[in-house]
């Protein structure tokens, strides 16, 4: 059996623990400090009750509730708390998966005293961090994750073979992980409203109407799942970062600055793992281009941020002259190999030494202590 632990309104709950005066109040956590020019990255349950949700522009949230409390996000608090919860769960000795910043999965096998374990974990988290978690248990991670959402906040739900159909009949299909807005609309047209409706369809039916995603859902709802120990998990195949800009922009300086920043981040992680990459994949999203994605494989493998940035620009040139309005962008490096050989050319050697020196400075004094000047333009949001 898999246990899925989902923290309740994680960022907002931490902010309410830090500032108890915010408890019981509608609160949003914004991704940027300017409260009227940001997006909601977390909302308290009191704010959610007013129709405010993650991803909503903050202006819209304040229109719904002018008395809304606002706190700018501070990732260090959330990451530290998340890592502490991970460490707390590791103590139990089960195989553990760090699913996201606020989600954890334990493979509890055939443990019989599940209810006692669930209550103990909830109580330890509440006592240590003054925040709550909802926990779901089921035969695989997809159902366990669904179960964790059923009785939020601070809830417990266990899906067994006996109660599975009864529970699935009560849950809307869009609550299931992997069923997004588009898939949900297709399912609605097919008469699939609840998770039970989906469960009762044949694999053939789901493949015909939803393709591979349909087959994955069919298998996901039925299989008995186990978590793999960390040591046997497959090696990294790609490293990428993406970012949604505060507003769509066609300003070349601003777009290039963000591309350069993302290339720096990707390259730093490549070098931390002693990897080189041959293929660069660029993803752009904007009102004129929709989702644009292209990749190119180069002869020379690299972990040089400037080279990755240049390769990203070459791919961007596929769009033609000029830069269209871009709202979000991402860069991913794949076709990875271990960095085994030392550079032969003098220029390459000098470049390697420079990058190594920059890495040492950033490791000693903190990330981005030294960075390309172009990155500074990420803060100049074009009007």
């Amino acid at each position, binding site marked *: 059996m898999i246990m899925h632990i989902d923290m309740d309104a994680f960022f907002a709950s931490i902010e309410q623990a830090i*500032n108890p005066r915010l408890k019981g109040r509608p609160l949003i956590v914004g991704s940027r400090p300017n409260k009227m020019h940001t997006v909601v990255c977390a909302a308290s349950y009191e704010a959610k009750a007013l129709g405010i949700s993650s991803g909503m522009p903050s202006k819209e949230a304040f229109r719904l509730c002018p008395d809304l409390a606002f706190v700018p996000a501070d990732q260090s608090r959330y990451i530290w708390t998340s890592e502490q919860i991970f460490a707390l769960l590791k103590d139990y000795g089960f195989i553990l998966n760090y699913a996201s910043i606020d989600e954890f999965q334990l493979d509890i096998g055939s443990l019989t005293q599940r209810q006692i374990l669930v209550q103990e974990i909830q109580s330890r988290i509440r006592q240590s961090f003054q925040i709550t978690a909802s926990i779901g248990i089921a035969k695989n991670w997809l159902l366990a*994750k669904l179960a964790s959402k059923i009785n939020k906040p601070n809830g417990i739900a266990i899906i067994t073979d006996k109660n599975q159909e009864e529970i699935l009949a009560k849950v809307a299909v869009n609550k299931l992980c992997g069923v997004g807005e588009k898939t949900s609309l297709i399912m609605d047209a097919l008469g699939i409203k609840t998770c039970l409706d989906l469960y009762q369809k044949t694999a053939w039916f789901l493949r015909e109407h939803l393709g591979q995603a349909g087959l994955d859902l069919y*298998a996901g709802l039925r299989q008995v799942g186990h978590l793999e120990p960390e040591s046997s998990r497959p090696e990294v195949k790609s490293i990428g970062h993406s*970012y949604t800009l505060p507003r769509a922009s066609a300003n070349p300086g601003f777009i290039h600055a963000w591309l350069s920043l993302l290339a720096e981040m990707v390259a730093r992680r490549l070098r931390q793992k002693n990897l080189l990459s041959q293929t660069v994949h660029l993803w752009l999203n904007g009102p004129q281009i929709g989702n644009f994605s292209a990749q190119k494989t180069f002869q020379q493998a690299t972990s040089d941020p400037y080279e990755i940035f240049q390769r990203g620009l070459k791919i961007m040139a596929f769009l033609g002259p000029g830069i269209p309005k871009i709202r979000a962008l991402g860069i991913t490096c794949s076709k990875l190999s271990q960095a085994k050989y030392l550079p032969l050319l003098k220029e390459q050697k000098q470049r390697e030494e420079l990058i190594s020196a920059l890495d040492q400075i950033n490791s000693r004094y903190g990330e981005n202590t030294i960075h390309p000047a172009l990155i500074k333009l990420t803060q100049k949001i074009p009007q």
Partner: protein
Amino acid sequence: MQQSGFNPKARWDRFIPEGDDHNTEELNDRIDVLAWFRRGKIYPKAIAWKEKLYPIQKITYNWQERCGAEMINYFSVDTGCGLYQISFNNTTYGWKLDKIISLT
């Protein structure tokens, strides 16, 4: 099959240079703190700021962040007349009043 893993070290916010919209509430004032160090934990008890002593009534939360080779310990503390964020640097042994979270 299992859900893909999360890497808490892959943080973009550490790479963002401070911009025009940085948090204006930040003070970053050096302060003196009376603290109790016990069993590997730090318990700040009182803050001396601008020649006034503020006894700490409650530590509402604490967390840590690594900044390069330095480890910073953050505390949100309630003095009764306000809620403050203070921090202790494990390398320099310096205390700072980072910001006022809210005033009573």
